[in-house]
């Protein structure tokens, strides 16, 4: 069945040749390093400045890189490349960059600025003074708020609704998004007294969107609660709907004034508050 070949493959001459150095560069380095311009990592020109006459330091860095520049990503180790090849890469870089001048780095410009988004909108992102599962909501041109989906509660109300996501996006989440508005209210605990007293963690259910704004839903034991913040003629309204009967005494919202307590067709209680004017 098997047909023997006329010669021994064991003595075949297909001995692995060393990979050409430009191919090593293409396979391992080029995705992040350019000749004369910082991109993901420093240019060859800069590497030449850093390591000229110091091949051993270059090899050491390749094997055990560290994070050197704020905002830049850490280079993965090049441990998989044999030391001889790293030295060949070193010589290659030194030769290629010889006499070349560095161009200015790519400008730190956001090509897709979130600051230009028209409210109303929702953007989940890292923001300071709130949990990692935060929801930023631009209500209108004047108001925004931050709702913490981890704790199921409002965290901040801001005057001014723009947000700059670039600090987050350029560092892959290694910085908070920059809120452009002024924080005019911070809520440090749940408005539901029972949640505070009994140290309950409500379960986040999600949200529905109507007119561009979310109605945030969560569950406390068997009770479903929803919260919706809107703005009407410069006034911020906050409606808390409790599925079933509820009394305003169960709530405590410093900074807000209770405007009405009503019931919908299903018998759910709707408590509507307005943000007190500062």
């Amino acid at each position, binding site marked *: 069945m098997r047909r023997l070949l006329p010669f021994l493959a064991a003595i075949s001459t297909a001995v692995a040749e060393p990979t050409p150095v430009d191919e090593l560069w*293409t396979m*391992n380095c080029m*995705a992040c390093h350019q000749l004369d311009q910082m991109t*993901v990592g420093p240019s*060859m020109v800069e590497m030449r400045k850093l390591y000229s006459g110091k091949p051993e330091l270059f090899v050491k860095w390749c094997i055990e890189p560290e994070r050197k520049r704020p905002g830049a990503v850490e280079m993965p180790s090049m441990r*998989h490349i044999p030391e001889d090849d790293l030295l060949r890469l070193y010589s290659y870089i030194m030769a290629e960059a010889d006499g070349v001048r560095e161009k200015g780095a790519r400008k730190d410009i956001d090509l897709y600025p979130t600051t230009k988004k028209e409210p109303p909108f929702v953007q*989940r992102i890292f923001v300071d003074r709130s949990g990692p599962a935060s929801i930023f909501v631009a209500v209108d041109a004047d108001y925004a708020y931050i709702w913490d989906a981890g704790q199921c509660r409002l965290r901040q109300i801001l005057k001014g609704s723009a947000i700059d996501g670039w600090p987050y996006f350029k560092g892959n*989440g*290694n910085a908070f998004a920059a809120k452009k508005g002024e924080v005019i209210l911070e809520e440090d605990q749940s408005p539901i007294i029972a949640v505070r007293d009994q140290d309950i963690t409500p379960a986040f*259910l999600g949200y529905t969107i109507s007119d561009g704004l979310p109605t945030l839903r969560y569950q406390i034991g068997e009770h479903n609660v929803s919260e919706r913040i809107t703005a009407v003629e410069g006034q911020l309204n906050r409606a808390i709907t409790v599925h079933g009967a509820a009394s305003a005494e169960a709530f405590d919202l410093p900074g807000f004034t209770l405007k009405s307590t009503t019931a919908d067709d299903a018998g759910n209680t709707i408590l509507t508050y307005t943000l007190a004017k500062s």
Partner: protein
Amino acid sequence: MISLSRLICSAAISLAAAQADVWTDHFDIDRIPTPQGVDPQIGGLATLPNGDVIAAFHRGEVMVYSQETEKWSTFAEGLHEPLGLLVEDQNTVLIMQRPELTRISDTDGDGTADTYENVYDDFGMTGNYHEFAFGPAKDADGNLYVALNVASNGAGIRPEIRGDWSAIGDLTTREEMESDRDWGKRKAKAGRMYARVPYRGWVMQIPADGSAPVPYAHGFRSPDGIGFDADGRLLVTDNQGDWLATSKVHHVQKGGFHGHPASLIWRDDWDGRDPLKMSAHELDKMRIPAAGLLPQGELANSPTQPIAVPEGIFGPFNQHTLIGEMNQPNLVRFLPDTGIEHVSQGAAIAFLKGKPLGIGNHRLAFDAEGTLYVGKTHLSWAGDTGIVRIRAKDNISSAFAVAGIALQKDGFKITLTQPVDAETAAKIAVNEHTYHYFAEYGSPKVKPAKAKLGEISVSNDGLEIFLPIKKIKARYLYTIDMRQLRAADGRQLLGDIAYYTAVETAK
């Protein structure tokens, strides 16, 4: 002075051209446009029942590309770093975003989502930038699986976290683990990657019957790829780094530890030890070795989503597993070797290698007509943006490629899709090496050597090659270099270097 960029460019083009020929002989590769004003990094990609493409973008938009109008429309927005998308029906998708698995529906049929339902968020977040979340993948019974990245000591944690805090580690308190000016002095004590909130480094199962999510498997580092192969195996890819000598693909085992130790502390039965204080030897005995090792700098540096080629599509590659790859201009085809009992192992081969595909290959999706879409990203590392479209040509059934590699007691049996020129089979070379398993970032090749081949033989029909090797070693990677191999009609292989992971030897 010759411009280096030009030099590299032309070198890359000529290299790519030589390689691309074999692929573009059988595949049409082009791009679809991306929407104006949207950061075109793709976190999730799928096709809808009507054939339209749906994509989740880096900054949280979910948009639909109409095949009819060739225009994009917004389905949903505002998501937090979505990194996976699964279509439930024409109006409903599941998206894995950083903080939760979310079901997003258009309930009133106006083309825009109105309902964002939290399906699963009972896992921790420290606010560390590296805590990505991937998935979901769905099994035949409707259970969902998501994968949670561990944190990186490139930064500490944020003042506010979600979930329980584990005090296991040299830095026990949250205050010590917080990012501040002195983080650089403390970071080594955190471990290169850490999992101080649950279930970082785990694959979680969300049962179809609505019962509580199950911590399903652990030992993952950066599992940016989760999916099922055509035979229902749950595959997860992981990225070279600490405890990962090279990138790899795992066949996930329920309850199994897959090698990165940070996640161990969230095992129910954990004894409270700091995994970083355990010996590599002890951890090695606990771990499930990867089914496929993907050598860094040669095949894959940062593998992504596995996907099964649908039945009846891509000719001889029908039902094969393809895996995305970020840094090399190729996908990876993984061929499991089912002949080794109780062990998952197999061969990995570059697929579509060359410039037309390019780098940054992150998310893969097929439509019913057999078009493969590849969504690209970079996330500020190496990569690309946009969506590449790949369609097989009519001649795909005649493609010359490796159909399978079976490890036998005394060598490898390579099956081909077309008859080989037997003379060229003698030019196959095999190299072997293994890797270290340790806390260091990546590993050099260990004990690299040329494998001693006996007499290579070819079956009468030219479809099988046997490579006799005297001493095949367990836990070794065999690089089978078939660059000199030619079909009987003179063609080159589509994918001419195979990397076979011998977890075990054949009995």
